[in-house]
């Protein structure tokens, strides 16, 4: 499977009547098993781009080629759970085909066993994020989209969840698109980093990481980070 994104532009009409260019031409593709990372400043149009890729926004110029039957798993910036359904129901409603074994395993990995019957209003943000992750993985997606899934969590928890995401992404062939501000998340989880410019967003730099995700040591990560910092300086 392959996701091809070829947006030639997107403008947005503001309430005051002016038109704003949100996206400049953006083009990239994603293979099955590959993790693409979108990194860019706040408000650069990443969320708009995701909405277009997910098929929620049709008002743009260009085209998105997504396998027609691709199942999508999405982790939104806010968890977007149904407050009136329990944790388990939230996952099952999005993924009606999920088996009990699979569900138990997901809840075990994400440490949610104790919260199956809780309502989202009774959960902390960290827990709600994990439920959103469980929901996205339970659908066994062909395309997994993670929109800043670790934002506003403390470092220790973010680190653990990042490892869990890495485990889950490695467990099956899936096209993954991760949006993040954090270079750490990007180099630990990503195969290809796409740096975006401020609004209107375009891809400034595309940096592949040659070492497979599982084999990156701390020294590798440090080196990659240093290289990225040098590149960033260069481009400015």
């Amino acid at each position: 499977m392959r996701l091809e994104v070829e947006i030639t532009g997107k403008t947005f009409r503001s309430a005051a009547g002016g038109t704003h260019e949100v996206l400049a031409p953006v083009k990239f593709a994603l293979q099955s098993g590959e993790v693409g990372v979108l990194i860019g400043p706040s408000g650069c149009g990443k969320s708009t781009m995701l909405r277009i890729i997910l098929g929620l926004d049709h008002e743009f110029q260009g085209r998105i080629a997504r396998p027609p039957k691709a199942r999508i798993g999405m982790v939104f910036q806010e968890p977007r759970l149904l407050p009136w359904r329990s944790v388990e129901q939230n996952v099952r409603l999005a993924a009606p085909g999920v088996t009990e074994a699979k569900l138990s395993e997901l809840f075990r990995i994400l440490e949610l066993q104790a919260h199956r019957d809780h309502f989202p209003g009774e959960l902390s943000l960290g827990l709600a994020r994990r439920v959103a992750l469980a929901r996205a993985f339970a659908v066994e997606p062909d395309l997994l989209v993670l929109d800043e899934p670790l934002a506003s969590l403390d470092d220790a928890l973010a680190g653990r969840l990042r490892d869990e995401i890495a485990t889950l992404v490695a467990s099956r062939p899936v096209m993954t698109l991760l949006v993040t501000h954090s270079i750490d998340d990007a180099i630990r989880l990503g195969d290809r980093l796409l740096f975006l410019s401020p609004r209107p967003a375009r891809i400034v730099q595309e940096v592949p990481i040659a070492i497979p995700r599982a084999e990156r040591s701390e020294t590798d990560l440090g080196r990659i980070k240093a290289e990225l910092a040098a590149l960033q300086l260069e481009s400015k």
Partner: protein
Amino acid sequence: MLRLVSSVLFLAIWWIAALFVGGAKLPSPPAVLEVMIAEAASGALFLHLGVTLARVTLAFVLAMSLGSAIGYLMGRVKLADRLGDPWLILLLNLPALVVIVLAYIWAGLTEAAAIAAIAINKLPTAIVTLREGTRALDRSLDEMASVFAMPRWRAFRHVVLPQLAPYIAASARSGLSLVWKIVLVAELLGRPNGVGFEIGVAFQLFDTPRLLAYSLTFAAVVLVIETLLVQPFEARATRWRPRAA
């Protein structure tokens, strides 16, 4: 417990007032109870209550289902909202009496006319409430349902309906009280049975014990339905909300 005390207090005030006013204008509770028992024994009380309840049920179900559907449509589709709005304002401000009288003139003194007239009175408030509820729907959850490719019916049932439930409950609550009031007027004006008809008869004879016997039984039935049906539904619809400690 508090409810009981409050009901006893009501009875006591009534009784004392009856002692002062006395006679035909305000009969004492036992006198009214006597009429109630006599009417119940003859079967007339149950017949009239039953007929009224049937009218209430039919008109209420009709108005709620139609009103909810139209309100949802007007909340979702801008064109429907624009087209429907003038009608809605007209219906909202039309006095109940006008609707009832016109219905009887146009459709005859029939059961259908009575039920339609009651339903038409309730319809606009159901539409307005449900339209507000639909406008307040969380778009981000719609998007979630769409991304996860939830089938339409499942999304409606699990994503949309729970958000509308408080609005439906509010509309049912206010609608029921409206229907209780209007049904009696409709019966008084053009039906040969029902609590409203009996009250009309009692009025013509200035028969206060009979009037009170019917209206109090009716009020008791309304109270029972409110506590046993409407309130549990509301509680169920909002059970996911974290309760105040």
